[in-house]
């Protein structure tokens, strides 16, 4: 596992306490997991995602990521309806490790509350939180 300063936390996304990130794209929010989360999990072997049309509250579990030795749940950083899932991950779950903020995105959500996204952490706040975990 890497040191925190070796990890990448772009300022273009917002971060949740459970290590998901969220990014506004027009009226849709794209969700994935942070570089820290993928590094902690190790090689991801399977991604289980919800179905389009499913609806979840903020903080609710929407899927699981399976790595060689563990299974971790992923939680909604914002409430809303699932409008797309990343189908590429079925064949290539390692995209989550290789490109967590890009090709490794998990779901696209039509958010219920605009404020959910604003309430998430900035890159600096998230990094401070991670340093506090050590």
């Amino acid at each position, binding site marked *: 596992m890497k040191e925190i300063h070796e990890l990448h936390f772009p300022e273009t996304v917002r971060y949740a306490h459970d290590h998901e990130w969220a990014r506004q794209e027009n009226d849709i929010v794209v969700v994935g997991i942070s570089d820290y989360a993928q590094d902690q999990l190790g090689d991801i072997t399977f991604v289980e995602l919800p179905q389009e049309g499913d609806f979840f509250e903020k903080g609710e579990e929407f899927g699981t990521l*399976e790595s060689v030795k*563990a299974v971790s749940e992923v939680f909604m950083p914002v409430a809303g309806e699932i409008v797309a899932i990343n189908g590429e991950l079925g064949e290539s779950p390692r995209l989550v490790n290789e490109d967590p903020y890009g090709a490794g995105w998990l779901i696209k959500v039509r958010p219920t509350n605009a404020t959910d996204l604003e309430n998430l952490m900035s890159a600096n706040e998230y990094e401070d939180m991670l340093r506090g975990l050590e």
Partner: protein
Amino acid sequence: MRYLPHTEDDIALMLEAIGATDLDELFAMIPPQCRKDGELRIPGPLTEWELERTAQELAETMGAGRDYVVFLGAGSYEHFIPATIRYLLGRSEFTTSYTPYQPEISQGTLQAVYEYQTLVSRLLGMEIANASLYDGASALAEALLASVRITRHDRVAVSQALHPHYRQVAETYLQSTGFEVVELPFDGDGRTDLSRISGEKGFAAVAIQSPNFFGCIEDLQRAANLSHDTGALLVVSFSEPLAYGLLKNPGSCGADIACGEGQSFGVPQSFGGPGLGIFATRMAHVRNMPGRLVGRTRDLDGNRGFTLTLATREQHIRREKATSNICTNNSLCAVAAAMYMASLGGNGLRSLASMNRDKAEYLKRELASAGFSPRFSAPTFNEFVVQAPSGFHQAYERLLEKKIVAGLPLAGYYPELDDCYLLCATETKSKADMDALVREIRS
């Protein structure tokens, strides 16, 4: 594991170490109402000769002796078990107190289980089989739960021609989950009436058994089409896997899960257990499959090796979200089944299955000539239901005294099948046995 009793000297040493004068003092803190006063009522010790005699006398009070001719199937089948299996299975490498899962010390066991999974998959025409579950009944319950996980529907349809005990176990499993169990009736030919599900949505699974409890062979292809049309998985249960030596297997008919009892394959009937829970499915559903799974891999030096795989489905990793609360397998019985299938081979299974069918057909015909009409018209494998002439239950008792068990009276399980009996003839029944049964019935 060895049992090493403490000697008087051991006990004295331990008492001395903790500073107690005797055992009574050691146990003094246990409240008197929780302690048994006086001696246990256990018979005194016997010599080996006396013990052998006592055990023999006890054995003779039970109707399980070799001298009984038993025409019972109904989920537990009498088959010849090749001597090779008894010998191989008795080897200490296999007969361990617990399945050793560590790959570094258990390559033999893991390979045997892997071969079991491979043979089961081939027999049933499925893509993957787990390392086994407890028995046919719990395998059905697990299949229904897996179907709910896969489809996200919350009710299941179960055929009434499925083994009554399996249905009972499945209902117990499902009771606390809130998932609804809808029973599908059987029709006049002894097969499941599927009209109830056509056009209805929202079923996670349609579960039928083939050959079913009445021995009738179900139309699996049609059941698969109807199930898939409604968005349900087809779960095919079985209690007599030998039938698939002759019949089209569940996988080629479109089953999504095939699960059942493997006792027929080299596992003695004993007193009804242990059994062998067989569970097989398609690769697409592997992450929702319960139970252990052995996989083949390569070690650091590139040599072939075997190890447990996809363990993230299981409760030691997945905790309350595991696919099942059972994270063990019936290893010894599974290994026996693998040895049995390998001993017979494809051709052997086929000719043994043919022999079973032919014997049962012979018995069916002979019974018909003695006034027992077949109750159902669907084709059968090695057991079938007959309607007995009224008053046969008295003859049934008389036959029992002559050490012939003339099948299973069905009224206790299906009140509407009063005077109906389920009879089974495997390769263990000779023509003379069957002729003797019919002769006794006529007299």
